[in-house]
């Protein structure tokens, strides 16, 4: 009759959700303890973060400017999770989207705004797709680990962006250091500094969700992710779907980069990504790869990132946000597993399964 933990192979969505929530709160609690131990007042900091994020229109606009790219990079990672792959290169694809946008924006000047924005949008998407093409093909047709290949290209993209923004494209007009000249094309504003890119970022997860749910392609992608062998034997082109999903992912991350340049920053520079690509992994994981769930998950991480930026005035670095995100991810991963265990008290549960005819007999004869 001794109580012991037994593992349940499949758990309910509700149970998983609770596990995620508890993990998130525990990770924040550990962060608060570390902050308290190093001489900060975590409660005061928390109140300050909430006030500055949600207390004013400006605060909300700033939050929105972080929320939008995180929805896109989170969605970029989430779609690959649907087919069982990891795109760790959203950071690089983001940079390339921004790079392509700047390239066109700096060199094609004086054109009407609307067609240019469409062109930049498409170019940003294509840039992101080009950047993930080789890892996608290598993964689908050569089983080359896509985690490492997509990640390595992040460093190449970063070096490229550093080079052009401090070299050939550097600003020669206003003396801004380590940034490119200004891209004149501007995505129209929605409210204050918040531009229409926010709406695009909000529609994208809904659109992808509909694609996944109601199209043949989406159905086959989900099956290929859940059971590649079954999908293959059912005649689905699993490898081609892997490539198309990764290209879609690259395009979404590239669009995020395009919107960052044309929407708010307008200058290509080294730190432009704010780690959006890496934080997008966290968003996708919190969303469990579900496109719609990317929206609330991105909001959560946006508040966290915004907190880091606010706390810079308190002598904390934004890199602390990356550390806290890592901590949350670790707790989430462990929490997911712990959710699979439940306490079993009755001996009956632990008894080995008995074939039905044998199990039935003692009950009738011995009774």
């Amino acid at each position, binding site marked *: 009759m001794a109580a012991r933990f*037994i*593992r349940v*192979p499949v758990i309910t969505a509700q149970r998983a959700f609770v596990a995620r929530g508890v993990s998130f709160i525990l990770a924040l609690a550990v962060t608060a303890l570390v902050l308290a131990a190093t001489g900060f007042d975590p409660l005061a900091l928390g109140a300050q973060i909430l006030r500055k994020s949600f207390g004013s229109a400006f605060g909300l606009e700033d939050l929105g400017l972080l929320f939008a790219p995180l929805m896109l990079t989170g969605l970029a990672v989430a779609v690959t999770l649907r087919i069982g792959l*990891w795109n*760790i290169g959203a950071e690089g694809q983001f940079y390339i989207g921004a790079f392509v946008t700047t390239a066109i924006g700096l060199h094609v000047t004086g054109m009407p705004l609307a067609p240019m924005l469409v062109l930049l949008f498409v170019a940003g998407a294509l840039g992101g797709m080009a950047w993930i093409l*080789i890892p996608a093909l*290598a993964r689908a047709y*050569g*089983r*080359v*680990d896509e*985690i*490492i*290949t997509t*990640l*390595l*290209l*992040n*460093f*190449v993209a970063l*070096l*490229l962006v*550093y*080079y052009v923004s401090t*070299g050939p494209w550097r600003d020669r007009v206003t003396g801004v250091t380590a940034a490119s000249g200004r891209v004149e094309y501007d995505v129209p504003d929605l409210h204050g500094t918040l531009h229409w890119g926010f709406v695009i970022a909000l529609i994208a997860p809904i659109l992808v969700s509909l694609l996944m749910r109601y199209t043949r392609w989406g159905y086959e992608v989900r099956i290929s992710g859940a059971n590649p062998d079954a999908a293959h034997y059912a005649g689905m082109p699993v490898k081609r779907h892997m490539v198309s999903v990764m290209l879609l992912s690259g395009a979404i991350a590239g669009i995020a980069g395009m919107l960052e340049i044309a929407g708010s920053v307008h200058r290509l520079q080294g730190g432009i990504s704010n780690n959006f690509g*890496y934080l997008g*992994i*966290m968003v996708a*994981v919190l969303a469990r790869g579900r496109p719609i769930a990317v929206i609330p998950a991105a909001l959560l991480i946006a508040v966290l990132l915004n907190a880091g930026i606010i706390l810079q005035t308190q002598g*904390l*670095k934004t*890199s*602390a*946000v*990356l*550390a*806290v*995100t*890592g*901590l*949350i*991810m*670790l707790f*989430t*991963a*462990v929490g*997911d*597993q*712990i959710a699979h265990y439940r306490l079993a008290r009755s001996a009956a549960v632990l008894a080995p399964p008995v074939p039905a005819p044998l199990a039935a007999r003692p009950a009738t004869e011995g009774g």
Partner: protein
Amino acid sequence: MEVITGILATAVLAGGVLALAALGEVLSERVGVFNLGVEGLMALGGVTGIIVGTLIPNAFLGLLAALVVGLAFGAVFALATVVFRANQVLCGLALTMLGTGLAATIGRSYSGMPAKAVFERVVVPYLSDLPIVGRAFFSQNILVYPIYILLPAAIYFILFRTRHGLNVRAVGENPAAADAAGVPVTLIRFCYVTIGAALGAGAGAYLTLAFVPSWSEGVVAGRGWIAVALVIFAGYRPFSAVLGALLFGVITAFGFVGQARNWPVTPAFLSMLPYLGTLAFMIVPVIVWGRQRRAAPAALGVPYFRDER
């Protein structure tokens, strides 16, 4: 001639970082645990090395402290992946983010300062006068010899020449069979993953105390990921991993020598070489042979659940 000597000398120095990290990853992957947190461990080791090396100006104590920090974070990672059997990719990425972010945060006030204590160059008499290879192999810091020879030899001997090593490899290939044969799967995985993580952090200290030698945010610059890739095309074997690291040292050295000698190539593009080279080494064998030449340990990345055997 002098160029070749220069490239070789830099290659041995630069390759040491990758060699040490890759050896750690070999230990982890041989027992079936995919540690993607090397990048973060190196950042933590690097910053620990520089902080301790500055407070107590002694490079060996800096390295020792980095190894201890690596053991601590490795134990946390092993607890999550081996004991709780959490998703290894997720935990590895988490460790990379945690380590990179934490190191950048605590290392801020040490950023850009040259290391107070470094691993000095040790000139081996006579041998260092050999043409071409003399300066490359016999006029290096003291850590080069354990990293390139002693450590891989010890790991090779333990893994492939002892009964214990057979058990260790069995844990990575077929944990259920190993378990049935009475091998303590969880204990072996935990220990090897933790020790492997310590070597990763040690590689970070080598980076900041012997190679660069200073700390700055982003100093690790993807070397942890290159080390992970290195292990794959080294076929999970210690000496191949070390040779692969040396090869990448050569690629890195081309970048440095090119800059120093004003080759007509933009430095940024030379700096891309190690990443593009790694990509090529991951993809080209697959194009040529249709797959990586040596298969991964069969249970790599798969948590072991005794109750689901």
